[in-house]
């Protein structure tokens, strides 16, 4: 067994152990911390598997953004957590839950073990046809050309998630700025970080977006970094979210998905299929959609984290 094998096996054991610990943790906050650490280790796993695109997405969205969202949720649930933990369901319900969870695990294990070896793959077809898209990164070619429908639905699902978050706000706060107003010492460390880091973060976020055409990266990862920079400025009290009734905000949110839909509809007219790209125009059209999606995704992801409108409109 080589040293890298030993590292891989150790990493896998730690990931499984941490996953079990996260499920078993009684305290919501502790479970969230476990989940974030689990996501970071999963990023390492994807790097070991040479899945750099997935690794970036896991670090930015799976662990970072979702982790921040879960920390907020755990903070909100803190007051009622003791009561919720005190309620213990009856033995029958616990047994049924254990059986259902066990059955899902067994079905998943069976599905994975039943895969033929080597697993079925469309990778050769992608490699054979990637020329026609003009894009260098096969992941981007799949996401934006061969399986563009999935990506479009993803962009729309994120928007629907934001509508879901907004709908949790009380009626009286509708139309107000979302989330709490943060105040921090304007000369303190946090405000200094929030003034110094965004220039670096903007460059890194746009770079990861820009390089996505040919190397690992892309709009979702880039948008998450841009959203994180704005959230940092907001937490330091340097920026505030626009009111949810703002027309400009609504335009920014839907511009990306609408552009995607428009390009898709144009494909139905000129290329013979919804989301088809006419010969020779694939790369420019992919660029247009990606540039339109980046600001929309960054805004949507940031506002999902900010939460529902809860202040009185004033």
């Amino acid at each position, binding site marked *: 067994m080589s040293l890298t094998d030993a590292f891989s096996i150790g990493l896998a054991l730690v990931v499984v152990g941490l996953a079990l610990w996260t499920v078993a943790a009684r305290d919501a906050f502790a479970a969230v911390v476990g989940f974030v650490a689990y996501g970071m280790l999963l990023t390492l796993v994807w790097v070991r598997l040479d899945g750099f695109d997935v690794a970036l997405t896991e670090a930015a969205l799976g662990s970072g953004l979702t982790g921040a969202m879960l920390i907020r949720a755990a903070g909100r649930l803190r007051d009622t957590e003791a009561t919720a933990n005190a309620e213990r369901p009856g033995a029958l319900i616990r047994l049924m839950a254990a059986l259902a969870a066990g059955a899902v695990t067994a079905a998943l294990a069976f599905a994975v073990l039943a895969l033929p070896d080597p697993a079925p793959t469309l990778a050769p077809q992608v490699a054979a046809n990637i020329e026609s898209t003009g894009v260098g990164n096969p992941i981007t070619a799949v996401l934006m050309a061969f399986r563009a429908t999935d990506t479009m639905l993803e962009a729309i699902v994120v928007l629907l998630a934001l509508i879901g978050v907004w709908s949790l706000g009380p009626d009286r706060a509708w139309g107000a700025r979302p989330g709490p107003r943060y105040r921090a010492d304007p000369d*303190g460390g946090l405000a200094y*970080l929030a003034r110094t880091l965004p220039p670096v973060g903007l460059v890194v976020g746009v770079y990861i977006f820009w390089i996505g055409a040919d190397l690992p990266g892309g709009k979702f990862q880039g948008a998450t970094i841009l959203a994180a920079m704005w959230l940092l400025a907001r937490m330091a009290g340097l920026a505030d979210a626009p009111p949810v009734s703002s027309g400009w905000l609504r335009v920014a949110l839907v511009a990306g998905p609408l552009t995607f839909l428009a390009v898709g509809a144009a494909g139905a007219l000129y290329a013979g299929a919804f989301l088809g790209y006419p010969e020779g125009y694939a790369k420019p059209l992919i660029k247009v959609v990606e540039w339109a999606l980046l600001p929309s995704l960054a805004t949507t992801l940031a506002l999902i984290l900010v939460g529902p409108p809860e202040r009185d409109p004033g």
Partner: protein
Amino acid sequence: MSALNIFSILAIGAGSLFFLAGTVGLLRFPDALTRLHALTKADNLGLGLIVLGLLPRAGSVGDGLKLLLIWFLALFASAVSSQLIARVARARGPRA
């Protein structure tokens, strides 16, 4: 084995030791402030030494600068977040 390789091994080894010591401190120290003190050693010295050890192995000057930037960003973020945690810990009293 070249001198640069020996330098890399020594620096990365020393950096890993600081990470180990920081982790032991995080687990063993009695309160939030001393635990933070242990963690900053891992972030600052541990990561710094590992970056230093990796520098001779960087493929280009650009890669080396990126490594240094990562260390700088980690230093910056950990300094600010330690300050924030320490402030809350102090406000809540020594037992928090």
